[in-house]
């Protein structure tokens, strides 16, 4: 399968790395010599130093044989032109563009039918705002995602000593908590990802990833001795595109919101666009300003400036001054594992979210959705069990799953089941699998066709 990626920035690089790892033929195009050098030196991909929106270059990269073109440069316009050219040269190639300008939001669907016929338009900022919003709802949640059209949530929570689950073996869960027991997919202990079996015990300090139905979320979270409280006051530091989007979304819910932005012109634009939100001009890392604006009383502080280091410092400062929880935007992947050690539990990354939606799109057909967990360590995959795939028609204990993957739940019509060794997946069931990055491509193969068909 040949894939052309236009743009070798952080997003392009990481997608290329994932796809090359899964043995796909990847060609990366970028104007910057250094970016191409970084990609070709570290990954098994082909690099072309040129503009990806040039038809000549796309031709050279082999657009006619390519199955997918991913346009993920920093410029919306360049991405659009690349897709337009690709559509002209090779209409059969599926195209995907990252377009972040909010003005295009309404027209994502129109791109599909009218030229340039972009099959998928992703705007990671929409996704990030959704994630921030979900994280606000459960103050204790570190990570949260939606599956099965939002009917199922997967949540990452830190286990503390007050929870009745601490120290309990997984196989005793059923007798202790009955029907409300959480479906535990993975545990992160001391930066290490563990896929727990029945014999494992949960320890205090573990980050527990579980799945539960939307309606049961409250009860399940209660098991962790955490509550879902209604939001009242939010402070946003950084009034960029994401900040504006989030503020608008909060305004609609009548939540008291303040935005701090350092650029005066931008402040004016924001105040023009907002009705009730308080727009403040100033530096988010200025302690006096935070105190003046009563940072100690806010439920959530969201740090969304374009500078990661500022975001981290603002969050730490706000915590110190008594803010309820903080959500920090971090784009550099190397920082993400550090965040929990410095006490910042809730982290969002637009790039990561772009990567996971793009990967999901690349795998379209077999997999309904895929959410990256823990940076890029693992993925939560939702798929439909096909009749031809190796997973159906036999009890699970007779199916050899790749090591590092676990079937978390089976959804048949409206019921969500916790699988046991004797459960049988039937064709048409939706299944949710948690898998380490290394085995994703094996899993993908397994979900499509039985080996005998080859």
């Amino acid at each position, binding site marked *: 399968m*040949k894939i052309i990626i236009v743009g070798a920035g952080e997003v392009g690089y990481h997608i290329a790395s994932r796809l090359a790892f899964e*043995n796909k033929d*990847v060609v990366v195009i970028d104007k910057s010599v250094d970016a191409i*050098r970084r990609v*070709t*030196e570290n990954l*098994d991909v082909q690099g072309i130093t040129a503009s990806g929106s040039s038809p000549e270059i796309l031709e050279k990269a082999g657009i006619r044989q390519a199955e997918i073109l991913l346009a993920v440069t920093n410029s919306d316009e360049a991405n659009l032109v690349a897709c337009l050219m690709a559509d002209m040269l090779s209409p059969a190639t599926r195209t995907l563009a990252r377009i972040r300008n909010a003005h295009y939001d309404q027209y994502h669907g129109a791109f599909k039918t009218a030229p340039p016929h972009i099959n998928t338009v992703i705007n990671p900022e929409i996704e990030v705002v959704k994630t921030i919003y979900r994280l606000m709802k459960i103050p204790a949640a570190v990570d949260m995602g939606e599956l099965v059209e939002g009917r199922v949530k997967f949540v990452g929570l830190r286990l503390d000593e007050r929870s009745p689950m601490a120290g309990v073996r997984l196989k005793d869960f059923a007798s202790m908590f009955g029907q409300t027991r959480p479906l535990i997919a993975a545990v992160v202990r001391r930066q290490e990802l563990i896929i727990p079996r029945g014999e494992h015990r949960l320890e205090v300090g573990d980050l527990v990833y579980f799945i539960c139905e939307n309606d049961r979320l409250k009860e399940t979270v209660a098991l962790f001795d955490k509550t879902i409280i209604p939001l009242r006051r939010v402070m946003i530091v950084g009034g960029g595109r994401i900040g504006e989007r989030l503020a608008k979304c909060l305004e609609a819910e009548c939540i008291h919101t303040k935005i701090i932005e350092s650029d005066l012109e931008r402040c004016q634009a924001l105040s023009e666009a907002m009705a009730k939100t308080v727009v403040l001009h100033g530096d988010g890392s200025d302690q006096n300003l935070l105190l003046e604006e009563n940072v100690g009383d806010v439920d959530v502080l969201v740090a969304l400036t374009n500078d990661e280091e500022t975001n981290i410092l603002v969050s730490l400062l706000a915590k110190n001054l008594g803010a309820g929880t903080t959500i920090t935007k971090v784009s550099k992947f190397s920082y993400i594992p550090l965040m929990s050690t410095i006490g910042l539990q809730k982290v969002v990354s637009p790039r990561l979210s772009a990567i996971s939606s793009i990967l999901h799109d690349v795998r379209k057909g077999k997999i309904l959705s895929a959410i990256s967990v823990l940076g890029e360590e693992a993925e939560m995959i939702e798929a439909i069990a096909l009749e031809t795939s190796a997973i159906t028609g036999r009890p699970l204990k007779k199916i050899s799953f790749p090591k590092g993957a676990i079937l978390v739940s089976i959804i048949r019509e409206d019921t969500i089941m916790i699988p046991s060794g004797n459960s049988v997946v039937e064709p048409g069931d939706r299944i949710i699998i948690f898998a380490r990055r290394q085995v994703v491509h094996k899993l993908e193969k397994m979900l499509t066709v039985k080996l005998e068909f080859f």
Partner: protein
Amino acid sequence: MRWQYVGNIIGILVIFIGVVMLVPLACSLFYDDGSQMAIVLSMGCAVCAGLFLFLVSRRSGIEYISPREGIAIVALGWTAIGFFGALPFYFGDAVPCFTDAMFESVSGFTTTGSSVFTNIEGVSKSLLFWRSFIQWLGGMGIIVLSLAILPFLGVGGMQLFKAEVPSPVPDKLTPRLSDSAKILWYVYALISLLQVLFLMGGGMGLYDALCHAFTTMPTGGFSTRNASVAHFDSAYFDFVFVLFMVLAGINFSLHYQLLRGRTLIFWRDSECRFFLLMCLGLTVVVTLDLYGNVYGSLGSAFRYASFQIVSIVTTTGYATADYELWPGLSQLIIFICMFIGASAGSTGGGMKCARLMVCFKYCYRELFTLIHPRSVAQVKINDAVVPDHVLKSIMGFLGLYLLLFAVCSAILSAMGVDMLTSLGAVASCIGNIGPGFGTVGPVDNFAHIPMLGKWLLLWCMLLGRLEIYTMIILLVPEFWKK
């Protein structure tokens, strides 16, 4: 540096060398030439040592090989391969001591073609076959071959590939390395097969045709005859050899493009055009120099001149004439040819045409900016700008190449070897050519060089084959620091 990774992959390479010894073993059984035991013993040693290394350093799946590990694997791997490749010569009593066996083996794998055998025709057929076969393996590269056939190396393969084929113009044929490696080997094998057919068409036996094709395509130069190609003394064979030496000196990705229907690619590619025109130009000059002086007819002057120029410039090293008897100008041209080398991405050695072209163009640009101080000019090859880091690395390469040539020939002459021989031997070994000047000329061999000198020269061969940086970096203390 994670030594278990390095050991593990070198273990695999050594096992691989042990396994390919089945080829000379089959040859030995076929001719019943008495070398069976030596080959079986060497196979046993290589496979056992390789397995031992592999098992001792077993690891749980390589995810990433750092550039430093890549260099260590390639540099030490080639040394290990040279060592185990030497065992058949040693056990087969083809040489008096192990140094000679190692020299012959490294000379083979690096496609140099310098020999210590005083009487080649006295050595058993299977050992001579092995000698040619290792040149064929070394030509396109052991690592490239293992990337093509051992898919599990693919993950960290890029670092290994870069360390073995540090071409100044990096171009992958396909997005994935293992596919590119496969294509290169298919093309290589295809042209080799073509040459075997051409040689057999001219009446050469299958054995000789195979052995010579195995040493032409990698621009190696080992022959099964004492007198090298001169033994056959036929204009047809000379022509076939010249043709295939030129093909071997051209970037193999161009062959692939030719096979895919781009017929004018040899002329369109500026490096290839430079290489072909240079071969032609030098041949004309040498022909005119020889005509009347050495050879009476223009035809034979052209025949010998073209063969010798192509043989040296592609770094093959076959001989049909003793160029040491030629006039001064011709000898000097041959000496300079030793440094030029073939195209980048070919199996030839030397400095490579691409680097020299970049160097010339860079010098011209410097002169140009002296005349137009405010001009913005860039060095271009094939209409593409050569990036600054490549430019710097090429200049560094050329400087280092000449420096090492000077230092090594000084060391060699300090061991009591005369000046002309020292210069010739080192130029020939660093350039992976074969014959040198003085007492190591085209009709002589390297048997009389002192033992330490042989080790120095075989290090020079590895230096040249892995294009200086990969090998010399092992001598830099910084490399070994944690």
